[in-house]
């Protein structure tokens, strides 16, 4: 877990932005038509395999911004993660997970920040680095929204109404998904009008082991993810 936190967390520079589209509870009851909206949402989740997930993850005091392409059919994703660097700058890494393996392409600062030598970090510049299977799975877990979405499809999963919330689209129906103490919250927009912004199909909020995520989920049709070209992967010499 130390490794996971270190690699995930980057530099603890504190939150410098307000959470994007953070839902806030405003009513203890769901609005009219909530049952139909929930049915539609669950049907969409069941039918759809590709998604774009956008939002933030907070690891300790460090906020990361995410754009994740998800293919639930192949349990694959490609995540662009912007995170704080020492000195207040930010940089972006790309995490690729498919076929049970994880690769990360990151600027040298990321590897140095996580304890690698500068020479070694430079050798990885512009290349994917393959992780051993188990370590890669742990590293990828907080970004594995496909797994969360797949879990939402479970027919027996309990969706407990948790009131209405102000959210990106105005108002969202709020559900606690599952029975565990750290069960994620799902926000279902009551309207598909989002002004100039694209409306998410749902918003998810989760908190586990010191990592909290707040993300918007958009169904899409064009996610294609494969492992990186070997020419782009750092190789042993």
């Amino acid at each position: 877990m130390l490794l996971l936190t270190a690699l995930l967390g980057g530099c603890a520079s504190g939150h410098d932005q307000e959470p994007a589209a953070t839902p806030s509870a405003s009513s203890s009851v769901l609005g009219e038509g909530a049952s139909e909206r929930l049915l539609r949402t669950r049907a969409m989740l069941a039918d759809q395999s590709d998604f774009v997930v956008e939002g933030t993850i907070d690891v300790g005091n460090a906020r990361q911004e995410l754009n994740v392409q998800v293919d639930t059919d192949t349990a694959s994703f490609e995540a662009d993660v912007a995170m704080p660097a020492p000195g207040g700058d930010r940089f972006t890494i790309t995490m690729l997970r498919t076929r049970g393996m994880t690769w990360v392409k990151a600027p040298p600062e990321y590897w140095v920040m996580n304890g690698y030598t500068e020479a070694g970090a430079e050798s990885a510049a512009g290349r994917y680095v393959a992780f051993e299977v188990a370590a890669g799975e742990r590293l990828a877990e907080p970004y594995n929204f496909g797994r969360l979405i797949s879990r939402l499809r479970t027919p027996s999963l309990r969706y407990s109404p948790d009131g209405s919330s102000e959210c990106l689209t105005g108002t969202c129906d709020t559900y606690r998904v599952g029975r565990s103490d750290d069960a994620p919250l799902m926000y279902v927009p009551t309207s598909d009008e989002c002004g100039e912004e694209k409306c998410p199909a749902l918003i998810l909020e989760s908190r586990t082991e010191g990592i909290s995520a707040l993300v918007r989920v958009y169904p899409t049709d064009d996610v294609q993810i494969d492992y990186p070209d070997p020419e782009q992967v750092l190789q042993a010499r």
Partner: protein
Amino acid sequence: MRIVKRASAVAACIAISVSVVACSASGSDGEAARSPQPTGEATAGNLDYVRPAVAKDTCGVLGGLVELNEQASTQDMEASVSQLGERLQLVAEGAGKLEELAESEEEASQWSRVDARYSEAADFLAASGGQVSGDAFVALLGDAVAASNEAYAGIEPYAQEVCNVSIEDLVAER
């Protein structure tokens, strides 16, 4: 070049370690008596492999594949595993050459599949930093071996009668 981490306690990243015994790409675990085999324990380190695809005819390519298999069987485990990707690529190239030389569309199609499967296994192995233990690689290798078994079975009589080459040891799990 390997990224060297300062903290030795964290050994997760940069998948270089080889901890699982890999299958030989061409099924070298057959009985030793079936065809000429080097005697003694496998002790060779890294080798310059033969390149079956440079042969000009089918018999030459098949002979090269057998020789490649024999070379691998002389290697110690570490060297054999470290050169697995190279062998996969050489088998793929050899299959590609057999596809060119094939006398029927069906035969060409079989060798084309072998080429594709071995190439994909080699690519994935390289992309994963040489890890041979992942489920995905094992599955790709299984697909490759299945494809080659089928192709070898089809050409075995020709290899024996025309080329006087035994390819039995190339066929896995017979």
